[in-house]
């Protein structure tokens, strides 16, 4: 298969970038999108040019690093799929494909398609610790969890922190990510003592990182490769409003400082 790629190139963090056009030919339909880029990069290196920088690690849809917007869709046109699991057979032969990095103030471009998603780590860190008894391992079932709660927590825990929700949102909002990270604990007895401080810390850190606000467009849900459901955000709103209106922590905790640019 043959394709024409329009790819964003940017040498460094505060430098100006531009689109570059490359033709790739003789591509097997069974190559993943990343492998197609590997083929192009080998050609570029062979010609003595700089390869296109892109993030990747597991190449099996679980690490969340293969961030790129393909023809206006984060991770490409296939629902519930990361870029590494997107295959060239999903495109028409001869297609023109535009590839851009995640665009958000909170995700500065480091090089070409690689952005710094550290703001998501800052949100997770703000969640803090979960208190557990240390010492001898507890007997199984000393803490019981309802099947429904375990399933719902697991559904939220499927989030791989890829940032596609932020990339898709017209406001660059990280609400779906933050919701998933809050909800995966909120339903479980483990970590219940930290429940209020966790949601307060994560939401205020999210705000300070320069993400936008949710305007209920729900583009995030359609872009999410792990199909985190929309009601996760409603549950985050409930968790946060409950903690803000009802907990002592909201008066006593220090507010987080703005994320460094």
């Amino acid at each position, binding site marked *: 298969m043959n394709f024409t790629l329009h790819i964003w190139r940017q040498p460094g963090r505060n430098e100006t970038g531009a689109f570059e056009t490359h033709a790739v030919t003789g591509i097997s339909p069974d190559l993943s999108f990343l492998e197609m880029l590997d083929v192009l990069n080998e050609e570029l290196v062979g010609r003595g040019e700089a390869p296109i920088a892109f993030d990747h690690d597991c190449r099996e849809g679980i690490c969340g690093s293969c961030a790129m917007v393909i023809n206006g869709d984060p991770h490409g046109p296939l629902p519930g799929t990361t870029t590494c699991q997107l295959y060239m057979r999903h495109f028409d032969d001869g297609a023109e494909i535009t590839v851009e990095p995640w665009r958000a103030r909170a995700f500065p471009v480091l090089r070409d398609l690689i952005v710094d998603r550290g703001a998501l780590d800052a949100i997770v860190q703000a969640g803090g610790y979960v208190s557990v008894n240390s010492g001898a391992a507890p007997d199984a079932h000393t803490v019981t969890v309802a099947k429904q709660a375990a399933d719902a927590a697991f559904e939220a825990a499927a989030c791989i922190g890829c940032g596609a929700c932020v990339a898709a949102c017209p406001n660059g909002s990280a609400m779906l990510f933050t919701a998933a990270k809050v909800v995966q604990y909120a339903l479980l007895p483990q970590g219940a003592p930290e429940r209020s401080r966790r949601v307060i810390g994560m939401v205020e850190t999210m705000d300070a990182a320069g993400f936008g606000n*949710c305007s209920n467009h729900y583009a995030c849900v359609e872009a999410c490769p792990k199909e985190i459901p929309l*009601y996760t955000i409603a549950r985050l*709103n409930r968790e946060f409003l409950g903690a803000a209106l009802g907990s002592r922590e909201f008066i006593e905790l220090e507010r987080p400082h703005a994320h460094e640019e």
Partner: protein
Amino acid sequence: MNRMLRLFRTSIGSKLLVAATGAALIGFLFVHAAGNLLVLKGADALNGYADWLQGHPLLWGFRAGLLLLFAVHIGVSIRLAHENRAARPHRYRRIARLGSRLPGRLMPVSGGLLLAFLVFHLLHLTVRTVGPMVEPLHDGSGRVDVYGLLVAGFSEPWIAAVYVAAMVLLGLHLVHAIEALFQTLGFNHDSYQPLIRVLGPALALLIAGGFASIPLLVLVGVIGGGS
């Protein structure tokens, strides 16, 4: 107090302000539309209702409350819209426009135009400096002839058109707003979400359609045709 200030500095707290004031404004619009539809019962019913409102001891308290609702709703949503634009300094070359449907994306536009309409509407029927007036202004019982004002105003096609267009915008604003409102307040569950999906457009149509029916009925001569 400290708690509330801190809450309103967060994104979710700001959305709570927009949603709560929006919900209160929807309540106001519902009552306002129902009151206006007294026009169907004739001049006496409408003028009597308007006269009762005008003489109500809480009139100014009520107006101050409405002003506050509008100010908070508009002020906070403008701040949010600014922050949202700043959060994406570099646009995409291509966007697939995943998910975000038209009424949602038009919220700042429909809201802004509604504000312009609100000014026009107040100049027309509250301050009474725009549009055709009636002679005499008061009816036989000494009450302001609101019925006559409506008929005279909406008989002018351009005034009727402005009102109907504004109600289309209102419907557009509310279609997105009502579903969003529940989500912002934290209500979204498989068991009742289908109901909210239906309730939003239905309530939007009821309110916007209720208002818009009045200029339309005047234009076709059903209201005020006989007098």
